[in-house]
């Protein structure tokens, strides 16, 4: 059955992958079912909760709203690609220290949104953090410690930059 669909080629967390899926299959389902990357979650199917957030060609998108065909040739990064060589990303470290994750279901999407925010804006104000994360719903934390985690990650990156500069 799957062989009848044209191949879609994409790079996911640095690896080239090819899938034969219907063009209207959601990128979210391609990631979870065909590529077995279950870190990205479904919370609403409407693009409201952000738990399906991934980076597509460097931009934050809700993967539940992307048809597979539109991901042809795309570079995708998911939560599984954040930690490098077993070393936690500064955001992951900060979330752990600050309590940015409670039940954890919103966390992958939240991390991707925060990672994207810090890439585009390395020193965000609190208002910018709120805006950057407004598309990711968390029902457990009330967001407070998520904000603190992002601030801490931004500061630690700044420290790293400063250390390199010396």
């Amino acid at each position, binding site marked *: 059955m799957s062989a009848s669909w044209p191949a879609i080629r994409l790079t996911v967390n640095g690896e080239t992958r090819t899938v034969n*899926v*219907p*063009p*209207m*299959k*959601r990128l979210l*389902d391609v990631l979870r079912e065909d590529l077995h990357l279950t870190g990205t979650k*479904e919370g609403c*199917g*409407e*693009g*409201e909760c*952000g738990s399906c*957030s991934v980076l597509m060609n460097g*931009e*934050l*998108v*809700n993967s*539940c*709203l*992307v*048809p*597979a*065909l*539109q991901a*042809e040739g795309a570079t995708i990064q998911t939560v599984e690609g954040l930690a490098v060589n077993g070393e936690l990303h500064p955001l992951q470290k900060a979330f752990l220290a600050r309590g940015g994750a409670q039940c954890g279901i919103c966390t992958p999407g939240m991390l991707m*949104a925060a990672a*994207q*925010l810090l890439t585009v804006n390395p020193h965000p104000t609190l208002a910018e953090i709120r*805006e*950057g994360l*407004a*598309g*990711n719903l968390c029902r457990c934390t009330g967001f407070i410690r998520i904000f603190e985690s992002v601030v801490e990650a931004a500061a630690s990156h700044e420290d790293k930059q400063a250390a390199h500069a010396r």
Partner: protein
Amino acid sequence: MRGNADAFELIAPGNLPEVLSLLAAAPGEWTPIAGGTELMVAHAAGRLDARKLVNLWGIPELRFIQSEAQSIAIGAGCTFRDLRAHGAIAADFPLLARASSWIGSIANQNRATIGGNLANGSPAADSSPVLLVYDAEIELVSVRGRRRIPYSEFHTGYKKNAMAPDELLYSIHLPRQFAQHRQYLRKVGTRRAMAISKVELAAVALVELGVISEIRVAAASLAPFPTRLYQVEAALLGQGIDARTIQSAREALLEEAKPIDDIRSTAGYRRQVAANLIEEFLNQLRLEGASD
């Protein structure tokens, strides 16, 4: 996920001429899909009736922002992020940059296109009142060529528009003539972010020697489609800004607005808030005028 992906066709000709040929060859058969932020929601709910879709995402001819001396042309395939990031839009059409920042989340803005927003034709569309007060022109394209219509003539009914079955939204043209105008935009939603508007009001006005010499007012969610408020404009044109004008503008709006009760809000609330917004705008004009 209630939609069965197997039951859908999605093709990607990859360029505009081929898409247009397809639409011409089988008018009404192929539904264009750009960023998917509307159609994919219906798909997940099992309510996507269109089984044959043609991909517009990634077609370079549709995604451009062209600055000319007199106007700006925005390709229908531009995302709202594109609009927010563009210097000329921020400078000359600040209300559009602001409205773009209210479309869903960052993730939604990275994918939702202005063409999709207009073609979808929701009465609550955030960018529409802005385009109306900026006197936008819509450029449509088909195998038969291109044509322009004022945006105010684009929506013809609830989720109905003036496009022929073989036409696509090509671009939006905004005249660069608002540098001197006072500008106002306010959206009222269910919360500060990720909110479909309950009511949105946009206004631009020229005030010369304390008199309104030019006025455009437009709203979302007060009618079956986003619309200019002509009665309100008539009540304001040529008037000074005082308690009496504010009162007559309010009355005109309460009369002209035809909101409904729906899942998000009530007609009475929408009407009253819209009247308060026009008053807020006029008060701002009055204050700004006082400081001239």
